[in-house]
């Protein structure tokens, strides 16, 4: 399967037939190692191009073979499927080491061994998730699935699906390759698109009914779900469309259970206001769903629009939705929202009478492993999203707008504001209404020292108390 050639530089060039070409790698590696070629003198490539230099003449095929432990073969067969371009070279380096020391693989604290073990673990995990998350759709007696794995595992998964669905005719389509089983013979085909596994299987709706019914709203653990079912797999699973509505309505359903009624309700939405404000707000929210004013709309799950009565005297503006807000589609429901609710309660402000929104409506993050780490929006993104905030303010017409954090202050005033200097007294906005600046609750959550955290929390409470008193003055 592999071709060896001497390239223009000194490195030996090995060309493998496919990204998961284990046999090709093994043949080449065996010969190279037997001839004592050092790891840094080999360049591994994948391709269909025919290197014409040395043809398929592997050097010194007759060289002495040496045995390797069985678990190395298993390791290599897994690691070859990884998407890391260095995998072939790393495996070859370890093979050379095994030639000198048969037990090299047992030294698991060795950086190279450890790294290869981690690659193996990633491949095995992806394979396990593929076994779990492939979803077939029945089309005229044939079962077709589209799946997007992270590594080159589709061929390797075939024996599992053949063993499980021996007596069905099925196809698994993936972007790079597809496999087909007709009940007797497995065949391979080119990569495919999602459109080739069309929807229309009536059992998907039945499955969604099951998914929604088996979920217990009294024990929401979104993190545990995301850890085991990362979002990268969601696109091809019919049930994942239900995740957001289930999360959003969970607390209400639990309260309903306690209250003894089983009627599920939507989260509180805006109340009536004279004129067409309500209709305008509904239209605005609808429009915001598909906003593409900046690039954040790509990776985020959905637009998180503001919520609250349009008659609210106080409007809170935060920074941007976080991980949990992004999933739930509602502002301030994650850890910062918890703190925000607690402080509101302490200061005597009823959240349901206020309008709560964010300066930026999409979640900005950098993926780190399975987690999505919050990342601060830049001025371009704040400015792009300001239009929505202005529309919301024009509809609600709050007497007091509270900027939670520097991003919100920037969005409202167009300038950079130092919170320490601006807090405690109102600024006047262009429309003549008051803007009070204070910290964002997540700032408090991020302070590591407990005493300083308490101090900042007390200052936050103090700021919101001032806001409440001012709102009461204005109401008189």
């Amino acid at each position, binding site marked *: 399967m592999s071709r060896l050639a001497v390239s223009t530089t000194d490195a030996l060039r090995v060309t493998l037939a496919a990204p998961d070409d284990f046999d090709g790698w093994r043949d080449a590696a065996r010969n190279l190692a037997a001839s004592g070629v050092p790891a840094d003198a080999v360049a591994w490539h994948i391709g269909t191009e025919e290197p014409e230099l040395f043809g398929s003449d592997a050097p010194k095929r007759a060289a002495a073979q040496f045995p390797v432990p069985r678990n190395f073969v298993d390791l290599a067969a897994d690691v070859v499927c990884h998407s890391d371009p260095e995998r072939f070279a790393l495996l070859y380096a370890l093979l050379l080491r095994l030639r000198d020391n048969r*037990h090299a693989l*047992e*030294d*698991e*604290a*060795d950086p190279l061994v*450890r790294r290869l073990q981690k690659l193996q673990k990633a491949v095995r995990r992806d394979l396990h998730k593929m*076994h*779990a*998350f*492939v*979803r*077939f*759709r029945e089309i005229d007696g044939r*079962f077709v699935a589209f799946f997007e794995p992270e590594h080159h595992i589709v061929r390797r998964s075939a024996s*599992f699906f*053949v*063993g*499980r*669905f*021996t*007596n*069905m005719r099925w196809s698994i389509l993936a972007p790079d390759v597809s496999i087909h089983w007709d009940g007797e013979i497995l065949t391979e085909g080119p990569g495919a698109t999602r459109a080739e596994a069309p929807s229309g299987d009536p*059992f*998907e*709706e*039945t*499955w969604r*009914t*099951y*998914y*929604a*019914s*088996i*979920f*217990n709203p*009294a*024990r*929401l*653990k*979104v*993190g545990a*779900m995301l850890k085991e*079912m990362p979002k990268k797999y969601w696109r091809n699973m019919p*049930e994942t469309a239900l995740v957001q509505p*289930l999360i959003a309505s*969970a607390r209400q359903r*639990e309260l309903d*259970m*306690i209250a*003894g009624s*089983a009627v599920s309700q939507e989260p509180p939405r805006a109340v009536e206001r004279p004129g067409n404000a309500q209709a305008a707000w509904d239209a605005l929210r609808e429009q915001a769903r598909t906003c593409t004013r900046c690039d954040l709309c790509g990776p985020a799950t959905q637009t998180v629009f503001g919520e609250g009565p349009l008659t609210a005297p106080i409007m809170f503006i935060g920074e941007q939705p976080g991980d*949990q807000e992004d999933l739930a589609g509602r502002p301030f*429901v*994650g*850890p910062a929202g*918890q*703190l925000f609710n607690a402080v509101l309660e302490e200061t005597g402000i009823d959240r349901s009478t206020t309008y709560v929104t964010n300066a930026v409506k999409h979640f900005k993050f950098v993926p780190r492993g399975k987690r999505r780490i919050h990342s601060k929006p830049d001025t371009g993104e704040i400015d792009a999203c300001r239009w929505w905030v202005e529309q919301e303010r024009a509809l609600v017409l709050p007497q007091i707008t509270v900027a939670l954090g520097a991003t919100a202050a920037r969005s409202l005033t167009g300038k950079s504001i130092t919170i320490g200097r601006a807090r405690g007294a109102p600024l006047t906005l262009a429309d003549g209404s008051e803007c009070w600046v204070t910290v964002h609750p997540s700032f408090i*959550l991020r302070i*590591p020292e407990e005493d300083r955290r308490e101090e900042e929390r007390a200052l936050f409470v103090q700021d919101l108390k001032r806001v409440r008193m001012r709102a009461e003055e204005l109401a008189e």
Partner: protein
Amino acid sequence: MTQLGLQQKLGILADAAKYDASCASSGTTKRDSRGGTGVGSSEGMGICHAYAPDGRCISLLKILLTNSCIFDCAYCINRSSSNVRRARFTAEEVVRLTLAFYKRNYIEGLFLSSGIIRSSNYTMEQIVEVARSLREDHDFRGYIHLKTIPDADAELVRQAGLYADRVSINVELPTTDGLTKLAPEKDAHRIETAMSDMRASIDDAGDASRRYTSAPRFAPAGQSTQMIVGADSANDRDILHKASGLYERYALRRVYYSAFSPIPDASAVLPLKRPPLMREHRLYQSDWLIRFYGFAPAEVQSTTDAHGMLALDIDPKLAWALKFRDQFPVNVNTASKEMLLRVPGLGAKSVERILSSRRWRQLRLEDIARLTVSVAKVRPFIVATDWRPTSLIDRTDLRSFLAPKQEQLELFAP
């Protein structure tokens, strides 16, 4: 009542089954559908085909045959005095649903339970019929977990074991008092007798299959049970005591702890507030320490407080290490496997890696960092070639160093 469609019934009968925590599909024999006429395979290791937003794995189609019940257990949504909507599947409908879901790769198999209708025997017959049809009429080789009914005829229970991979009977509550109060029709003694009979059948079949390859399999994935936590006054010490007794007496594969959660139309004898989910988590951790880390039940119980409760802010292994600090630090280059397993932050896999690699090198702290998930957690309790934690282990405020810095705020906490 008007005729319900299959989908509506599924909604009602899955909803009714969700308070059972178990959804495992592991521990059974390896097999696939090659050479057969149906579908299904099992690799021994279970597969979770989806996760719900409650963080729980969805591996099996977990449903009740019917949620009508002649019993009146206070904690149960299906008790006879509840106003919940009732529905009932036919055996044929369950078979059809299971196969349709399985063929689309939604599930690993079926977990079937039922409310008690007419009599225990009648109900058990219906459950067994579903399993029989799947195995015999459709050559289904996926996973089947059946809930058996303590009072049912021994012959019916035996049949259930022949078709199922796993069988279970719930002990429901950790104390006999609690059971008498909350589940008046259930009898702790009868439940345990049934578990004991089941163990005997499983052991017998195991013996037979070691001698004759043709011996019929009997519940190869063993039996399990479930206890509800927080519905009665039992503390963690009681629960651990009960669980370790069950493991010993009936060779259970798993004891599931299910934090009592509010149910619609709850009975007035129940507490309104749910226990923290963390309590359930700590119980599982303790369970693991006993089963996989070589802790004696009494050792885990010794970490509970004056009220018999496990600490919620730190895990029980850390709690034990802080209480018995004279056992530490542990030298990673020389300590026994048993002692390494007791180091907070070292899991079973990390310990294996340490044992394997220390035959080839003297382990330094950076080596440990590569072999473990978090070296910061391990560091205070170990000695490595270039590391001694003396200044840390003697600190009286070590706990505050190691306890999680920020208490995790519960999403939508009341």
